[in-house]
């Protein structure tokens, strides 16, 4: 008998199989994930998430029988009151479905009709943002390089000994030795032995003397060669080479700009918030550090903390340009464009003081758009379902958007629009279409 302690064995034998299940049910899981998010549970996104998918997606079919009609006999335990001939009313449907095929049917009928997954945060977000990407990410990132990383880049003739590529080096060494006809040590020993053999035999014939002479010359050449041609020559050495490649900047800042004037109702602010949250989670996955700046505005703008931003109502008119000026100020002061990836998301109901719109457009196109990666403008319409006519701000922004692909504008009427709009903004092919509403 052996006792083996398997506890220290590698765990997670089934991780691969688990991954395969997710892969297989990907469509269904993805739908479940998106439903979970659009039904307003985005706050929970930060935690590991349980999603349920219809078990159909993972069904394993087989030929199974089921009892449909006719007669069958069933043996049951636990008789308390029945005598032969007693009649029992048929239990409602469950009785028939359940018994059919004894246990096999329970997989069909009484069993689970949905399948529950516990997803890690990573898996959840991966599925959630599966086909989304940041527009123009690469181009801007490389231009904002700040660190260099070594990466493998072939071989070189010099380097540190720890990077010596032994097999390459020996290959070169062997080629050189063969090319220069360096004798093998064994050959020299051989010659030596034959010379000694001849020398030992005293009276030598002429032929043997010649032979001895020849062998001695040969030995001299061989020894000379052996001494002159090294086993490993510096020219053989090969080192693994590393070159420094630029590593894209991984810092980003996200400006959340929202109109909090009297015309924005709580519901509209809630919609804006949903959008900001989505964007935040999305950006967080791409950047190591992500800062958020909250700027609210009515007649004037100010930078506030998150709590105030979402919860503290203000009243009064609306001057959008003040917020844009504030964005510029904060950005210039703290987030230089060559070190940070800058994103702006603006939510508004489209109201603006008439005379301010040209100022806002001017600010937007002259100072903000040139430095940002992406500027998303969400216009929230008041009455819900129906998108009303175009506002001044919308018209003005649309004109700007035609020139600047970084600017994307969308209208949102209802909570369920948020997610589709978000997907639309960041879907894979959005680069070609960005800016065309």
């Amino acid at each position, binding site marked *: 008998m052996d006792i083996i302690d398997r506890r220290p064995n590698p765990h997670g034998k*089934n991780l691969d*199989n688990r991954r395969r299940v997710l892969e297989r049910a990907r469509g269904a899981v993805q739908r479940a994930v998106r439903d979970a998010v659009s039904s307003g549970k985005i706050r929970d996104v930060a935690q590991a998430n349980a999603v349920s998918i219809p078990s159909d997606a993972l069904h394993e079919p*087989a*030929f199974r029988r089921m009892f449909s009609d006719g007669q069958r006999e069933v*043996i049951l*335990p636990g008789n308390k009151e029945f005598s032969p001939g007693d*009649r029992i009313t048929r239990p409602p449907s469950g009785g028939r479905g359940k018994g059919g095929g004894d246990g096999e049917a329970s997989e069909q009928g009484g069993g689970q009709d949905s399948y529950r997954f516990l997803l890690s945060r990573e898996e959840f977000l991966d599925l959630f943002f599966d086909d989304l990407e940041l527009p123009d990410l690469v181009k801007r990132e490389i231009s904002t390089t700040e660190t260099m990383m070594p990466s493998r880049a072939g071989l070189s003739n010099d380097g540190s000994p720890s990077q010596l590529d032994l097999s390459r080096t020996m290959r070169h060494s062997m080629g050189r030795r063969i090319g220069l006809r360096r004798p093998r040590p064994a050959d020299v020993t051989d010659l030596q032995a034959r010379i000694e053999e001849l020398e030992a035999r005293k009276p030598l014939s002429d032929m043997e003397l010649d032979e001895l002479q020849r062998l001695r010359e040969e030995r001299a050449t061989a020894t000379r060669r052996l001494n002159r041609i090294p086993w490993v020559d510096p020219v053989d050495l090969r080192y693994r080479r590393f070159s420094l490649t630029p590593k894209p900047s991984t810092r980003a800042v996200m400006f959340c700009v929202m109109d909090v004037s009297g015309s924005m109702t709580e519901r509209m602010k809630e919609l804006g918030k949903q959008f900001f949250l989505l964007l935040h989670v999305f950006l967080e996955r791409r950047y190591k550090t992500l800062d958020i700046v909250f700027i609210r505005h009515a007649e004037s703008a100010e930078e506030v903390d998150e709590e105030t931003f979402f919860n503290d109502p203000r009243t009064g008119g609306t001057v959008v340009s003040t917020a844009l000026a504030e964005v510029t100020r904060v950005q210039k002061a703290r987030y230089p464009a060559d070190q940070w990836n800058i994103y702006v998301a603006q939510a508004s109901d489209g109201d603006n003081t008439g005379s301010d719109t040209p100022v806002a457009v001017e600010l937007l196109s002259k100072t903000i758009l040139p430095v940002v990666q992406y500027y998303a403008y969400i216009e929230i319409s008041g009455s819900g379902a129906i998108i009303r006519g175009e506002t001044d701000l919308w018209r003005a922004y649309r004109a700007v958007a035609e020139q600047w692909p970084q600017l994307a504008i969308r209208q949102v009427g209802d909570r369920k629009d948020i997610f589709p709009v978000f997907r639309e903004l960041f879907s894979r092919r959005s680069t070609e279409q960005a800016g065309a509403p």
Partner: protein
Amino acid sequence: MTAIITTNTKRLYTGTDWNFQTLRDCYDAIEEIAVGELGLETYPNRIEIITSEQMLDVYTSHGMPLIYPHWSFGKRFIGHENAYRRGLMGLAYEVVINSSPCISYLMEENTVTMQALVIAHAAFGHNHFFRNNRLFREWTDPSQILDYLEFARGYIARCEQEHGVRAVERILDAAHALQGQGVNRHSGMRRVDLNAERERARERRQHEDRTFNDLWRTLPEREEAAPLRGGGDRAESGLGLPEENILYFLEKHAPKLAPWEREIIRIVRLIAQYFYPQPQVKMMNEGCATWVHDTIMRRLHETGRIDDAAFLETIHSTSNVIAQFDFEQVGPNFNPYALGFAMMTDIARICTDPTDEDREWFPDIAGNGDPLGTLRYAWAEFRDESFIQQYLSPAVMRRYRMFRLLDDSTKPYLLVDAIHNEDGYRAIRRSLASTYDPGLQAEEIDVVGADLAGTRTLRLEHRTRPGQLLQPDDARRTLAHLADLWGYGVVLKEIDTQTDRVLFTHSAP
């Protein structure tokens, strides 16, 4: 029997914690009783200590220490994991597999009493059963299964590398769906030589390597498959129809499969065949193991090697395992541990202390004074169905208050047509036995023809039992898998066995 050892015997342990030394001591003491007193014959034992997380892994692969990767195992794993995490399911204290050496998995969380109990249960009870029961002896070769599984996993991994995970998954999905039809039920049992299997695959591969010639690749492809010469009948006669083992048929005759695809089907088929006896003797196997552990633990207590506290824990856990709920809770399901244990205990009682009723029902064994020999014979020679036919006594039927319902779908009520009394015993015993009869439980589906000269449509027949058709949705999907492997259309007719009338026709694609 060895002499009863008196009170000066050392206790094996006290308290609840175990270490490897106490495990060894327990094992030795248990072995002494199992082999010396009960006369059990076992494969060499190997005991592996695992964590609860590893236990979930073991569940997933039917207890096998390794298995090829497939998503369905992941599905099972997630299911178990969810149930366990949410507290819906406790883990078994042990899992044991039919191999030689016989591997028992023990969970580290168990108390020392539980470890002793499961060693008695698994390493001796189940192990003896695996080694001696006729079904296992005839169908399985436990000395080779571990190596074969290793080979299977390696082979499938290599296929995944060469042909892609998708391509392999396609074959495995289909083969798994047809697993139930991958066993030769009627055409005789044959123990597969699993070592020869590995050898075979290796040789085939070498042959391929040797005969590989890149020139063949450059030959122009034939325009289309030439029509088969000769009559369809003649071609069909080479197929050995009808064939109940659909996987075997596909492996040998499916026209479009690549050699590696056939080998994967073969792997699934052989593993299915290896597991085929297991459910047929589940009740007996569990009954045997439970009876063995109960007897051994009693002896340990009698001889003073475990204390009262440990013995109470044993009784507590045994009675949990053998609890049988009434039909209101569980319907027509008998707990295999309960029924098995009750029958084993009953047989032992009949041998030593028979009543008049027992003498009438079991004249052969009543009062023969050899309970161990009688039980060992029963464990070796029967399966659940025949065991119930042979040994289910009125006493056990009364104990579980069994009764029989006649379910006639034309009537609005269910009829109680037999209960645990003089008139009912035999009817109940017959019906209960038939629910364990694999011949009655399995679907009889045969390949009956393939139109080789024409459309190559494969024809199958399901000989139905009265009122029991295939679940249509499942049948459709399984058939789609079958059609995928066959490469051409497939038609499945459900036929009334009595009248030969076609009741339903499924077809794919």
